[in-house]
């Protein structure tokens, strides 16, 4: 019995363990040097990633409230890897920071919340995970206590997410009222009758859309991303977004399958808006974090495009895209965090002539941006191709055309950054930045992933098979 619990809730258990260990370190306060603390944490996180790969079983607990299977394990691995990379990148920023353990504790709490959320089989569990993953994030946004932008972004975060979860909850309550259960499996067949349920569904959908930051529920995104510290922004834009996509997929395909045609059209609308608006805003940004925020909004549009097909292919390509996106986006954020930590600059115009002194970083940035733009031979190309292909299966070629044409617009602003880095002259370019070893390792992993994953067809086929089940 007990061993079963351990096995099924393995990753959550491990995470909890790490959190408590860090708490203990904090209380004990034995280790003074930040570097060693950071190294310890990174090692722990790495072990967490490794441990996530073994001793996995399928199963469910608490009468279906919590369940796990290969897909979920894969998703959790993605989250773990992402978190690990982020913490590696945060090294230069944290190493002279006073309360770094709190940072990690909060971070891991959110990760734990996400794990619970994505493997939840019950709206209550889902709600708990959601809140656990979003409330500490607001605190994290405010981590640079003395920066005005940071606190402002935190306020925006907490307020709008509170509002959003209120709407979500209201929807959930109505679902409960109309079906009398909170369990996905029991609820699914009872749905699809009457406007009240539709209303509830729309509320819930809006709650998800908010977290996914798909237009018109996206407006918090840019401000929060801009204000938050770079690693937190990275975490927001990659990890939390990915986790929401995962649970969103489960919700749509399991819980709301009766609403199939309806949510297809909802997605249709939001895809159009999301991609277009995201691009249009991204064009005119100069702050690079804000720019990436809008670009990530546009990316979400493509993910939704894949999901909207309602096929296994769509799901698997969405997962694959998220993997690639994790590496590409984190690579870009890694460079930005390096620059921000060393010079405090975060404008695109500051990157002019960046290549002159920082060749490696520039190449990482360029390749990751190309991967985000979907330019071959980077993995982003394949990921985006698969999403679009999956979306085209519905035969809605106008949507596809608009999405594809937007890829050209997006190329424009990605190239704008590349241009700033490689082409533009600058009399005082950013001088050579010496990042920490861990950052370098992280960047190398990212660039490696961003290039090679596309050619690893086995990976994609594996995803396809496990999501098929």
């Amino acid at each position, binding site marked *: 019995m007990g061993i079963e619990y351990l096995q099924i809730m393995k990753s959550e258990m491990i995470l909890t363990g790490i959190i408590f260990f860090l708490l203990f370190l904090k209380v004990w306060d034995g280790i003074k040097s930040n570097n060693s603390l950071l190294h310890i944490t990174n090692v722990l996180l790495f072990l967490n990633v490794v441990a996530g790969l073994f001793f996995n079983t399928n199963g469910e607990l608490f009468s279906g409230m919590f369940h796990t299977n290969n897909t979920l394990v894969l998703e959790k691995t993605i989250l773990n890897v992402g978190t690990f990379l982020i913490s590696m990148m945060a090294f230069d920023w944290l190493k002279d920071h006073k309360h770094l353990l709190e940072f990690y504790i909060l971070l891991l709490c959110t990760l734990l919340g996400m794990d619970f959320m994505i493997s939840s089989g019950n709206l209550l569990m889902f709600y708990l995970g959601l809140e656990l993953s979003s409330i500490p994030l607001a605190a994290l946004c405010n981590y640079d206590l003395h920066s005005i932008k940071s606190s402002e972004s935190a306020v*925006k975060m907490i307020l*709008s997410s509170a*509002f959003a979860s209120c709407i979500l909850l209201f929807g959930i309550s109505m679902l409960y009222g109309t079906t009398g259960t909170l369990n996905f499996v029991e609820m699914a067949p009872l749905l699809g009758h009457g406007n009240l349920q539709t209303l509830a569904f*729309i509320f819930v959908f809006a709650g998800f859309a908010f977290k996914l930051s798909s237009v018109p529920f996206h407006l*918090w995104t840019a*401000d929060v991303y801009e204000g938050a510290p770079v690693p937190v922004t990275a975490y927001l834009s990659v990890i939390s977004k990915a986790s929401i996509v995962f649970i969103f997929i489960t919700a749509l395909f399991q819980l709301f399958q009766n609403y199939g045609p309806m949510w297809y059209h909802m997605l249709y609308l939001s895809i159009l808006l999301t991609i277009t608006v995201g691009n249009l*805003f991204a*064009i005119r940004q100069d702050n690079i974090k804000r720019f990436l925020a809008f670009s990530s909004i546009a990316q979400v549009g493509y993910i939704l495009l894949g999901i909207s097909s309602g096929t296994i292919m769509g799901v698997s390509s969405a997962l694959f895209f998220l993997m690639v996106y994790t590496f590409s986006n984190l690579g870009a954020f890694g460079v930005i965090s390096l620059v921000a930590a060393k010079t405090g600059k975060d404008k695109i115009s500051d990157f002019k002539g960046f290549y002159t002194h920082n060749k490696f970083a520039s190449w990482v940035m360029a390749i990751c941006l190309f991967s985000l733009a979907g330019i071959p031979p980077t993995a982003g190309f394949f990921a985006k191709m698969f999403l679009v292909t999956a979306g085209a299966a519905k035969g809605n070629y106008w949507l596809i055309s608009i999405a594809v044409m937007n890829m050209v617009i997006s190329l424009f602003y990605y190239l704008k950054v590349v241009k700033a880095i490689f082409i533009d002259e600058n009399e005082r370019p950013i001088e050579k930045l010496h990042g920490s070893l861990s950052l370098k390792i992280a960047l190398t992993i990212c660039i490696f992933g961003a290039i090679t994953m596309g050619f690893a067809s086995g990976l994609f086929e594996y995803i396809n098979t496990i999501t098929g089940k």
Partner: protein
Amino acid sequence: MLSTSLIILIPLLPLLTFVLIALAGRKYFPSLCGILGTLSLLTSFLLAATVAYDYFFVVGKVGEVYQQIIPFKMTWLQFTPNVAIDMGILLDPISVMMLVVVTLISLMVHFYSLGYMKGEERYATYYSFLGLFTFSMLGLVMSSNIFQIYIFWELVGVSSYLLIGYYFDKPSAVAASKKAFIVTRFADLGFLVGILVLSYYAGTLDFQTLITRLTTPTDQLHSIMAASFLGCSALTWGLVLVFIGGAGKSAMFPLHIWLPDAMEGPTPVSALIHAATMVVAGVFLVARLFPVYSISCPTALDIVMWVGASSSFIAAIIACTQTDIKRVLAYSTMSQIGYMMFALGVSRYGGENGLGYMASMFHLFTHAMFKALLFLGAGAVIHYVHSNEMKDMGGLRKLMPVTHLTFLIACLAIAGIPPFAGFFSKEEILQAAFNSNKAIFGIAILTAAITAFYMFRLYFNIFWNKEYHAHGDSHGGHDAHYGEAPFTMKFPLLFLALLSIVAGFIPFGKFVTSDGKFLLTEFHPTFSIAPVLLASLGIVIAWSFYKKESAAPQKMADGMSGLYRGAYHKFYIDEIYLFITKKVVFNLIGRPAAWIDRNIVDGFMNLLADVTGKISFLIKGLQSGKVQNYAAYFFAGVLGFVLVFIYLWT
């Protein structure tokens, strides 16, 4: 019969010299290039002569008819199973005749240039170009395929371009070469389309097949007659278009404007290209397709006739007023080629009607001799005087007797005074014209008189008129010493002079006729009295005007000032062309095209970008930065979904 390989050598030798000199000669043995070129030309001349002998006296004739022999042929570019460009050699009377003419004149010019171009900076290059030209010209005359002729047609064009632009640092020379190439290119367009038309209906590009198919009632002939565009049959179109090509090369009115300017090139080049060989390519082309013209489509032949006649007359008029001796010669060339053209025009296929054809070829032959002689003589004069202008000359007869004598012979020949070569050919042309079309005959005979006048105007102005006194500006003011040219230049003069005397006695009708059969041409003294008298009259007038310096010509010019000015300015044809090209083509087509491209087509692309930018600027208000607005949008979004999916959803 000569072995095929030797025949191929005739054009190939000049090509080899070209390649050799161009790659190695200019760098390693520049001074020897002249000798090299001359020797190779000598060889190919001898070969050509042998071929001619063999053809005319040994193998050519089968049962009283000269056959077309194709010793060599290879497929060069296959379009469709039965339409292909072949590289071949076609031997028949005209091609063999041209073979001899080209090699001979080219040899003379090579030899002459040894002296004339001595010490030139790009001496070697000059010879390589000469080689290239000779190769292309020989290829042209021996072509067995209408597309092959087009290929070499272009090649002679470009080599003429290179040679005209030989003094490339003289802007006028550059302009002239450009003009020559572009005008002829324009005409070649007609040729090309003509080829397309003919080949499409005839279903072949090969001359023999083409001619047989388009002259005998085959279904190809019917189809091409049936197909009509803008009221004319496709055949007419094809032939006229082809003729346009020929007219361009042969400087027929109104495509003649390039020829006078082409005189910017070195004088021997003018002798070779712009007097004897290349410019008669048009005549050759019409003669090559003569059966088709005469049998299937006389309409086209009439066009040929009128174009020829008008050009010969206009050119003669203009020639009377020019003061640059080379330009005078250029216009006389144009006029003589006009003669050949309308001779073809008045002729018909076969037998007695073929007289014009024969005469035209005959005139082509003799004209090559004496016109080359004239140019080379003029070259000698220019070499001595360092000027092309008549006013710088005069009284040279004592200083350069040989040149004087040969020049006189040539003048007499072109004026058609017996017993010189020009007399015979011209007389036959006139006869042919007389037989078929009186109007043409009138123009022709008038032209003959004018020809005599302006040629002797030239002659007297150079060698008589005033005493020669060297003028200081040119060549450090050498005084009037005995200035005969070196042997290398003298020999060609004498040789050609000899030819221009004897060439007329060749019984041409034996060899070259429209149908290859023997054509007896009897000589009517009574008929030839009138032309000769008119010619002599012209000479006398010239003598009275220009033997001594006198005001008479000036008075005369003022007397008919309008005509004189018109002729002096070449009837403003250049200006018209200039207007069309500069104003119409450049300003009305080119400039707008460029403008549209930059501002409309490209502007549209930029507009897309701008519009995108604008939109993104307009909607930036959404991101107001106020969290309550965000929540409001959020709620509005929810309500919007509700509206759409609950109230509008079906």
